[in-house]
């Protein structure tokens, strides 16, 4: 089965997607506060790993990474509402890249699957 990652064009597509996605996140003041004290280059590298995972590409993400990577944000109030916003922007990004609705739904499902790890529940 070809993954969405392959359909979109692999690593090159991730480079394009991460710019669109991260721009949406930074421009959205419901979530932009979580990025205030982070270095943009490191953030971009992390977002690339995240997008590669939810698009079904080769990745080394584990639930444990998800937990430790977000624990400090949960302490600052990260909750379900913010995860919904991430999923919303993922969908918007994929639409701009011309992905089909079914693929967008599949990505949303993968991202949803990480919800409990991200929120450290």
């Amino acid at each position, binding site marked *: 089965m070809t993954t969405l990652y392959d359909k979109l064009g692999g690593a090159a597509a991730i480079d394009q997607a991460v710019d669109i996605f991260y*721009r949406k996140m930074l421009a959205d003041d419901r979530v932009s506060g979580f990025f205030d004290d982070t270095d*943009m*280059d490191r953030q971009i590298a992390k977002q690339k790993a995240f997008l590669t995972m939810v698009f079904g590409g080769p990745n080394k993400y584990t639930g444990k990474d998800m937990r430790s990577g977000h624990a400090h944000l949960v302490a600052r109030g990260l909750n379900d509402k913010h995860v919904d916003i991430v999923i919303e922007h993922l969908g918007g990004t994929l639409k701009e890249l011309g992905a089909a609705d079914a693929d967008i739904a599949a990505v949303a499902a993968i991202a949803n699957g990480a919800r409990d790890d991200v929120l450290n529940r």
Partner: protein
Amino acid sequence: MTAHISLSGSKFAIEDGETVLECLTRNGVHVPHACCAGVCQSCLMRATDGEIPAAAQAGLKPTYVNQGLFLTCQCKPVGDMTLCPVGGGELDVPVQVADRVMLNHNVLCLRLGLEKDFVCEPGQYITLKNRAGVARSYSVANDPESDGYMELHIRLFPGGLMSDFLRTEAEVGAQMIIRGPAGNCFYVSDDAGQFPIVLAGTGTGLAPLYGIVRRALAKGHTGPIRLFHGALREADLYLVEQLKRVQGVHGNFSYIPCVLEGEAGRYYSCGHIEDMVMASLAGDKQAIRLFLCGAPEFVKSLKQKAFLAGVRSSHIHSDAFLPTKNVATAA
């Protein structure tokens, strides 16, 4: 399970969330360090045994990674590690102060003679060390390979350890040590050198940008190149005449000094460098390559603004001149 680090016959327990640098410093072991942010590479050590977390080797050259070198300030051990200090001769390159001249009231131009070949791109940075072991990062303002010397622009801070050393002890002929280079802030000519380049720096952030501009022009870059230099007052600008001359010779290069507390009607622009750079980012933002250097807040803020305005993240190259952060020593 508590991780331990072994070094020269001593064993230290890592406390919760602690880095190797913090642990050693807490135990009275002196490890040189400066930025504590994984940038300056002054805190390198070698692991002879144990797992090195990936974050502790991010940004290191492959030859360093293969030798088991890692950044102690970024290393939170995941298990026991055996370390050894990095021996003097292996990474250190001896240099000699060849020339020193003030470029304005507080910026020193230091030229270092190289005894060995030292390959680096103008715009990368090196670690400069003095006899007392103080190590600080400085950006390379020229092409050492073709010039035969390395040029640094160093702002002298009153009370700064390296600043004071350079002010009082680094006479012509004095021996110093460099290491490196590191960093991704340099000119790469692809696309036949036609892309637009925008460079913006505050203070000695001009050093790497000056190197990058000259390298781009030497490589025959044909796209427009705009250099913004931000200063608080006119007296804080430097290399003004040289840059005006380059502008006279190269039709595609423009030099825009920006003075925050300036007077209207002079050769420079009055106002905030960020606003001027943003106003210049018109047209096809996808093609622009942006180089940002200098004060960390400036670099961070402009990077984000330019990215949100549509500049591609892979086209933004930057070096924030992070100040020294001292780690707590044994009480």
